[in-house]
């Protein structure tokens, strides 16, 4: 059963088009991530799902209902806001109880729910405090508690972790994931952080300029990015983009890579279907981890190291290919110091090729 379906939703203010026809459908219990840079329309889409803003055209279905004309409170959803939106004049208990009170949940039941939620999130000791007396992490917890108390069919998280410091963010991320596993509810989660997107999501919708660039599982998005934007947005450090021309050598389709005055033809094993487009200007996409340091191999290139960034388990090596700065993720023992030369062998089985003009993926 589809838990959430968004059908051709658009949103415009006068001549400004925030959303240009969004289609998304997810199943019950799935964790959907809406990710994209700021201004891409993801928060607007979230607000439309919540019913806080109305779509210009299109339909939103939650569960088996078309909810366009249903008020937010009747959509059976709960939402956690970026700023947490805790009612400052109420203590934590009242914050959690407010919604239930409004819905007319009996007092006794309210107390039970509050106790359960507080236990689940380990915040029993905070119940009588005002939001101003809580730390950022605690507020975040209360905001989640307030949503949990609702027990909705759909949770909406609007960048819930972006106001936390790095360590807390990682902790809370894990906690949210565990919560999802435990509760098996459907979640829509807006973020601009691609790591959150990758770690949390069952399905990711990458958005830009009001358009969904790609909708798929994290793995699909990572390995088969639909276009240059998705490829660059997902993954850190970002994918390397090397401009080159398609060539054919010995019946094999491939590209020519140059470094330090040395040029080498590298065949693309997955690019047989591009046979008819030899000579076309393309962009070769290689993730940093798709380079191996080798001693001497036929498909490797000697590259001069400009800079190294050790992260502990790996070392990022910055160098050049085809006159473009690239980054290779190497094992620390293979990394060379700046000024030294390292031979890099790209793993062409996972390489992707984009059309230089349309920026869509060719192979």
């Amino acid at each position: 059963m589809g838990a959430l379906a968004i059908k051709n939703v658009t949103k415009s203010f006068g001549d400004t088009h925030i959303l240009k026809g969004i289609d998304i459908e997810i199943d019950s219990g799935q964790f959907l991530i809406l990710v994209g840079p700021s201004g891409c329309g993801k928060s607007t889409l979230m607000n439309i799902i919540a019913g806080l803003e109305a779509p210009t055209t299109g339909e939103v279905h939650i569960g088996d209902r078309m909810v366009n004309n249903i008020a937010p409170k009747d959509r059976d959803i709960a939402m956690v806001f970026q700023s947490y939106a805790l009612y400052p004049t109420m203590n934590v208990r009242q914050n959690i109880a407010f919604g239930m009170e409004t819905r007319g949940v009996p007092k006794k039941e309210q107390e039970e729910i509050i106790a359960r939620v507080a236990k689940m999130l380990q915040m029993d000791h905070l119940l009588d405090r005002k939001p101003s007396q809580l730390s950022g992490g605690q507020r975040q917890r209360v905001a989640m508690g307030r949503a949990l108390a609702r027990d909705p069919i759909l949770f909406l998280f609007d960048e819930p972790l972006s106001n936390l410091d790095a360590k807390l963010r990682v902790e809370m991320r894990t906690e949210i994931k565990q919560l999802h596993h435990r509760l098996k509810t459907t979640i829509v989660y807006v973020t601009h952080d691609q790591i959150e997107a990758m770690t949390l999501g069952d399905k990711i919708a990458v958005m830009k300029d009001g358009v969904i660039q790609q909708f798929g599982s994290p793995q699909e998005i990572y390995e088969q990015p639909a276009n240059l934007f998705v490829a660059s947005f997902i993954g850190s450090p970002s994918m390397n983009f090397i401009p080159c021309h398609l060539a054919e050598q010995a019946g094999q389709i491939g590209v020519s890579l140059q470094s330090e005055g040395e040029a080498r033809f590298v065949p693309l094993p997955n690019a047989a279907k591009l046979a008819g487009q030899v000579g076309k200007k393309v962009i070769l996409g290689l993730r940093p981890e798709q380079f191996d340091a080798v001693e001497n191999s036929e498909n490797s290139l000697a590259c001069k190291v400009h800079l190294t960034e050790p992260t502990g388990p790996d070392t990022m090596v910055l160098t050049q290919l085809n006159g473009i700065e690239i980054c290779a993720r190497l094992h620390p023992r293979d990394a060379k110091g700046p000024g030294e030369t390292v031979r890099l062998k790209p793993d062409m089985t996972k390489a992707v090729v984009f059309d230089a003009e349309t920026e869509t993926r060719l192979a």
Partner: protein
Amino acid sequence: MPKFWRGVVYSALLLAALYYLLPLYVMVITSVKTMDQIRAGNLLSFPTSISFDAWSKAWSSACTGVECGGLKPFFWNSVRMVIPAVLISTSLGALNGYILSKWRFPHSELTFALILFGVFIPFQVVLLPMAQTLGWFGIARSVTGLVFVHCVFGLASTTLFFRNYYVGIPDELIKAARLDGAGFWRIFFRIVLPMSTPIVMVVLIWQFTQIWNDFLFGVVFSSGDSQPITVGLNNLANTSTTVKEYNVDMSAALIAALPTILVYVFAGKYFVRGLTAGAVKG
């Protein structure tokens, strides 16, 4: 900061304080002098003995025209006028501000601009048409009429104050409350209003002083038994026998000013605090 400069700062501040206090000082000491002392001394000279006769005369027996009942009846007129007028105009302002910042609708900004412009209208312009309207409503020359007038013309500033304050309340709070199932009124009374204490203080103080101190509407829209204290004071100060009783005039002026002065002394800090909390933004 070097000691020398701190000295300069303190001297400047104290000097300014003297300038602000001078008229009040003059009024207070004059009000407790007898006429003989006033004639003998000058405006700064300290009274040789303190007498509150002038105060009691101003309160209960000075003449304001033919009646000689002092300021007492006028004072109560003002009280009866100022309390409902302040409460109503503040409540309406709070609601308007809430709607114009949190429940925008097509052309709500234009609506706000139209209401806001009312702050700037010279009140003399509205005297006659207002009089006619009050006549139609049958509330001319009554305290009710004055309350109405003050509400109408206080609306612009109270709306402005509240709207500017509420713009600073995050929209997400309202969204959260809507998801929690709260409607228009419930959000206002349970979420927004409890957060409004600073601005409510500012508006209450502002409206109280504005309405208490008003003379123009008071003189025009009231008659004998509904005249507010400013009109009483004006009549008293202009009702003179051969001797101008400066001490009675000053006592009367102080009586008229006492409520607002007290409000400032005791609630002034809330005023500044409220302004800090966002009333002056944009």
